[in-house]
């Protein structure tokens, strides 16, 4: 028996549990039992309400404002290296850009975690 365990447990189990044969009638049975199709409108609304839609919107915004995000990052690096604060207008743009970018990362992270 020992050799079965060390080498052939998988075979032993497979021999002991015959798996069902393919059954076309089962597929037909499943198809008959499928719930009614949702309308296109319902599916669109479901998609809009899903986290994917939010993620897509944020990614699209990041792509549209990519130059501003990069510019903000460059200003941020310069400000840190020169130890000076940018003017208030630039600072507010930077905050908006980084918030958008942070939203994308957080949403992506939460999606991946789920």
């Amino acid at each position, binding site marked *: 028996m020992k050799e079965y365990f060390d080498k052939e447990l998988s075979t032993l189990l497979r021999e002991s549990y015959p798996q069902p044969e*393919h059954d076309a009638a089962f597929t037909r049975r499943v198809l008959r039992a499928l719930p009614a199709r949702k309308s296109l409108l319902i599916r669109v609304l479901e998609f809009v309400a899903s986290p994917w839609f939010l993620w897509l919107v944020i990614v699209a915004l990041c792509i549209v404002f990519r130059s501003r995000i990069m510019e903000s990052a460059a200003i941020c690096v310069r400000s840190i290296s020169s130890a000076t604060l940018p003017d208030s207008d630039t600072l507010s743009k930077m905050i908006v850009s980084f918030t958008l970018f942070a939203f994308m990362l957080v949403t992506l992270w939460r999606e991946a975690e789920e």
Partner: protein
Amino acid sequence: MEEKLLIAKVLLLNDEKAFAQLVERYQRPVRGFFLTQTGDPALSDDLAQETFIRVWERLGSFRQLSGFSTWLYRIAYNLWYDEVRSRRPMLSLDDAEGPPLEAEISLQAGQRDENCERERARWVRQAVARMDEPERTCIVLFYLQEQSTRAIARIMDMPEGTVRSHLSRGRAKLKAILENNVPR
């Protein structure tokens, strides 16, 4: 047809033909999983059907973070878990065949040549049926459904290390039961 294409067709077009192809592709492993757990072909087909209906309803939530088969087994496992929790009577394959009593086994010792394999299979099934639920499911998924420990961890929503522990304990229990009972 490529699996991802089938999934996309079901998702975007509610294409029943594409879904039928997915069912055709996965019906044997899913029905096999439930048959191993329940031992009752009718009940296992009912549970497998319910699994595919849930797949149809929830395909939109499939994030492709894992493979489709892992996601499918996860639905099947959750369904099975609910079934066990609802305390429906669980049959084993041995119940269906009439499990051999220990006395019967000893009486049959002289007839081993002919019945050895069948007897061994019954003992194996009985040994698996005696295992605790998570250990049994880990053994079934690993050895019969050929899922990796990583996939089993996703299916059963537990750390991979826990899956390895269940497998190890399950193997040890099977060994202890079978070494003393199964005819060689």
